[in-house]
C-alpha cells in the first residue's frame, strides 16, 4: 500500500526524490555536550540519508551504550531504533538483519563500546560480512563514564603523542581491513564534505561497511598542555575534586581537499594531523591500504577517506543461502510442514 506524504511538510523546504524534507530525517533534541563531535556525525547521517532518499522507516538504527550510542535518538525520528547493551550492538544487528534483509542497518558505536567490551562481536560481525553500516564515533575515551582512556589511540591529543602511550592503541580500521571488511573508511566528525559522501557510500554498500570517525570529546580531553583561559577552571575543578564543569564549546569543523594534509586544533588546544587520501591509493587492495595507513601513522598523520572497498562483497544472507523474501514475512503456510509430514517423521522413530 502507499501512504500520503507526511502532511506537516513545509512547502518551501527542499525535498528529495521521495518528496521528503530533511525534517523527515531528523530526530529528537540531543542531550550531548554542546560541541560534541557526535552531534556533527548525527547531522551528517541525516544529510546522507536525505540525499540518498532512503525511506526513513526502512532504516533500523542500532547502538550499544555510551554517549555515541545515545545518538540514534537524535537522528531519523521515523526509524525504529534499538539502544541495546554495552558492546553488543553487532549481535543484535545480526539477528535483526537475518530477520529482514530488506532494511538498511546503521549501527552506531563508540570506541569503548567496540574496542573494549565489544571487540569480540565487532570482529565476528566483520567476519560474517553482515550487510550493515558500522560507525565508530571515536573519541579515544569513555565519555559517558567521565573520560577514562579507551583502547583506541588517544585521538586528537598531540601532547600524548610524545610520551609513550602506556598500551598499544588498537586501530579499528587496520583490524577491519585485516579481518576482511568489504568497505573501510576513516573520517573526522567536523568534516562534513568528506563524511557525508562516505556515509552515503557506506549505506549504499551491499556488505559490511566500517567507518571510524574521529569525534573529539569536548569534555574529557584530560591533557595538560592547554589554553590559558581553561587552566583557571581546571585548577578550580581539580581543587574541588568535582568534574561537573563543562564549558560551552563550538563544534570543530574542518575542510580540506584530497591529497592534502590538514592541522585541526581541538578544544584543549592540542592538534591532530589529518591527511585526506588521494586518488593514488588503490582502494581495491587491502595490503596497500594497510601499508599506507601504517606509513602515515609513522609520520604522525592520520589517513582519512575511503581506504578499501570490495565492489562485490558477499552478504551473510548469500553465505547462509536464505530466500529473497524477508524471513520475518514468511507466512505460516510457508513455514509449517503440517501434520502429514509429522506423521511420517513419527514413523521414522519407531
Amino acid at each position: 500500500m502507499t501512504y500520503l506524504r507526511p502532511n506537516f511538510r513545509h512547502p518551501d523546504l527542499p525535498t528529495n526524490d521521495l518528496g521528503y524534507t530533511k525534517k523527515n530525517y531528523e530526530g529528537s533534541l540531543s542531550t550531548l555536550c554542546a560541541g560534541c563531535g557526535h552531534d556533527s556525525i548525527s547531522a551528517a547521517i541525516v544529510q546522507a540519508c536525505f540525499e540518498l532518499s532512503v525511506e526513513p522507516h526502512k532504516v533500523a538504527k542500532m547502538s550499544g551504550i555510551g554517549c555515541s550510542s545515545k545518538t540514534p535518538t537524535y537522528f531519523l525520528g521515523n526509524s525504529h531504533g534499538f539502544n541495546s547493551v554495552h558492546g553488543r550492538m553487532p549481535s543484535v544487528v545480526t539477528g535483526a538483519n537475518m530477520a529482514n534483509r530488506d532494511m538498511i542497518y546503521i549501527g552506531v558505536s563508540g570506541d569503548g563500546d567496540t574496542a573494549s567490551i565489544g571487540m569480540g562481536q565487532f570482529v565476528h560481525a566483520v567476519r560474517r560480512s553482515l550487510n550493515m553500516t558500522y560507525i565508530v564515533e571515536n573519541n579515544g575515551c569513555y565519555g559517558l563514564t567521565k573520560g577514562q582512556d579507551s583502547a583506541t589511540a588517544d585521538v586528537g591529543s598531540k601532547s600524548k603523542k610524545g610520551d609513550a602511550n602506556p598500551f598499544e592503541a588498537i586501530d579499528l580500521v587496520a583490524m577491519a581491513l585485516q579481518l576482511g571488511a568489504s568497505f573501510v573508511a576513516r573520517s573526522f566528525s567536523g568534516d562534513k564534505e568528506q563524511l557525508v559522501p562516505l556515509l552515503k557510500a557506506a549505506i549504499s554498500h551491499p556488505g559490511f561497511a566500517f567507518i571510524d570517525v574521529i569525534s573529539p570529546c569536548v569534555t574529557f580531553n584530560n591533557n595538560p598542555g592547554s589554553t590559558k583561559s581553561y587552566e583557571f577552571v581546571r585548577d578550580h575543578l581539580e581543587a574541588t575534586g568535582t568534574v561537573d564543569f563543562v564549558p560551552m564549546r563550538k563544534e570543530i569543523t574542518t575542510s580540506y581537499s584530497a591529497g592534502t594534509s590538514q592541522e585541526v586544533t581541538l578544544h584543549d588546544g592540542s592538534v591532530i594531523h589529518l591527511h585526506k587520501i588521494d586518488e593514488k591509493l588503490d582502494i581495491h587492495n587491502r595490503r596497500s591500504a594497510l601499508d599506507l595507513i601504517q606509513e602515515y601513522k609513522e609520520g604522525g598523520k592520520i589517513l582519512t577517506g575511503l581506504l578499501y572497498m570490495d565492489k562485490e562483497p558477499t552478504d551473510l544472507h548469500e553465505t547462509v543461502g536464505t530466500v529473497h523474501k524477508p524471513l520475518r514475512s514468511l507466512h505460516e503456510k510457508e513455514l509449517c510442514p503440517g501434520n502429514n509430514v509429522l506423521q511420517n517423521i513419527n514413523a521414522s522413530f519407531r
Partner: protein
Amino acid sequence: MSKEAALMNRIESLNDFVIRFANVNGTGSASANNLFAKAIFRMGIPVSPKNIFPSNIQGLPTWYEVRVNEKGYIGRRGGIDIVVCVNPQSMAKDIEDVEPGGYFLYDNTKALDLRMMRRDIHFIGIPLTEICRQEYTDPRQRQLFKNVIYVGALAALLNIEFEVLTNLIADQFEGKEKLIAPNVHALELGFNYARENFQCPIGIRIERRNNVGDAILIDGNTACGLGAIYGGATVAAWYPITPSTSVVDAFETYAKRLRVCPASGKQKFAIVQAEDELAAIGMVIGANWNGARSFTATSGPGISLMNEFLGLAYFAEIPAVLIDVQRTGPSTGMPTRTQQSDVFECAYASHGDTKHVLLFPSTPKECFDMTASAFDLTERLQTPIILLTDLDLGMNDTMSEPLQWDDARAYDRGKVFTAEQLEAMSERFGRYLDIDDDGICYRTYPGTHPTKGSFFTRGTSRDEYAVYTEDGAAYARNMDRLLKKWETAKSYVPAPEIINAEHGSNIGMIYFGTTRAAALEAIDHLHEDAIAIDTLRLKAFPFNREVEEFIAQHDTIFVVEQNRDGQMRSILINECEINPTKLVAVLNYDGMPITARYIHGKVADYLQSANVTPLRRQAGQKAERKS
C-alpha cells in the same frame, strides 16, 4: 553356563529388567546398543535407554543402560540385572554393580582376573576379540563389529526375535545396502556362538507384547528442534555446548529437508553459529525485535552468560525463545551428567527486579509441543520464554506419544499494529500504553509505516511513549505494569498435570520435567504400601491458581527435584507465599537421573519417621482424577 552357576539362584524375569553395556567411548558401540534397545521396542515392549558418557571424545568408559519394562515404567529403576562389559578399564566396578543372581557378559578372549570373580552372579564369557580377529582384517572393522556381535549374542540369550534385528539393520542402512550383509553376518556370529555355548534363554527373557502402541522412541532435543520447525522459527543463533548442541542440529537437519524453497533451492530459515552465548542471545533478541521467530539453545554456562541480555529482553519487552538443556552444575560441573539446577538462575535471571516465564517439558512430545507454543507465548507476552529440559530428556531416546500437529492451528503473533492500523490511527502511538489493561502493550515491527509507529527500544527507563525518562513515577508505573503482565501470564501458560489418588489424599507430591516417570512409578509402589498420594506436575512458571489450590488442599507435600538446594521448592514458597514447613524436599543431585526406588524410599522413610498416615479424602471431596 557353568554347573555351579546353574546351582545358585539366578534372576528370573520376563520383559522386566535392567541391562547395562560398558564400553569405551569412540569404539562405535552406540549404534549397536541402539540396535538392541530398538529391537525390544519393536517387539512391543517399553524400553528406556540411557547414555552415561564421559566428557571426552575417545578412550574413556561409557555406559548404556537400558531398562526393559512391559508395564511401561520408563524411569530409572536403580540396580542392574545384566552387564555387558567390553571395557577392561571399568570391569571391576561393572562386576560389583551386578545384582546378586544377575548376569555378567564379557569378552573372555583374555581370561578374567580371578580377583574380580563373584560367586553370586553368572558369568557369560564370549571371545569377542578372538572372533573378530578371525573374521576381519581391517582393525577398524574388528572394533566396530565387536559391538554388533554381542548384540547378536544377546538376541540368543534373551530370546530377541532375530528377524526384528535384521529388519532394523535393513532400515538403518537403507541406501547403503552393501553394509547390510556384513552387519547381519556379525549378528549371526554372536547369535550362533551364544546358542552353541550357553543354555538359551537365560533366566531373563523377552517375549513379544503389544505395550508400546503408536509410541515413538525419540530424544527430547530432536523433538525441540522439530517443535521450532513447526512453531515457525526462522532464525536460530547458537553456540555449541553439551548437552544442547543436538537441538540446533535437529532443527538444521529438518529445516534442510522441509524448509527449502524447491524453486530457488534457497532456505526459509537462517542458522548462525555465534561466537559465544552472549552473541547468540543478542541475535535472537535482534531477530525477534524485527518480527521473526527466533530461538537459541544452550546449557548452564550459556545461561550465566546470557544474564545481561535476558534482563534487557525482560525490561524492553522483546520476545525470545531459549531452550536450556540442563546439565550438572555449578560452573562446568559434570557436563555429561543431568540435573535440574538452573531453575533459580532462569526464573530470576539478571540484576534488578526480573522474573522470567519457564516451561518444563517431561516427554519428547512435550518438548515438541512446548517449543512450538513457546513462540506463540513469547510473542503474546513480549518477554523471553525459557524451556527447561535436561540432558536426560534431551539426549536419551525416550518413549513418547507420537507428535501431533493440528493443521487448523494458527500462529498467534501477539499484539502487533499493522500498517493499516497505524494509518487509521489518529492518536499518538504509545509503545508502552497498556491499552487492554492486561499489562501487555502493542508493538510495531520496524519498517511498517513511513511516519507512524516508529519507536525507540532501550534498556533504560522510558515512558508510555518509549521516550527516555528518569522520572521515578514513570519508572515505577512501568515496573508495576510488568507485574500486571506477569499476572496475565499465569493464565497463558500451560496448567499443571494433577493426578489424584483414587479417593484423594491429604498428602501430595509436586515434581516437574524428567522426574515424572520415576515419580509416577514411586507413587504406584507407595500405593502398594497402602500410601495414597496426590500428585501435581508443574508445567510452567509462573504458577497458576491450580498450583496454589493443590498446595492448599494438602497437609504435607513432597517436592521432588534433581538439584541440591530445592530450587523449585523455594520458588513455590516465594511465589505462592506458602508456609515452608508444608513442603518436604526430596532431592537427587548426583548427576544421574532420579530413580523410582530413591523417591519411594525417601517418601516412605519420611512418612514413617513423621508417622504421618495419609488420610483418604471422603468421596465427593473433589477426588476426581484430573488427567
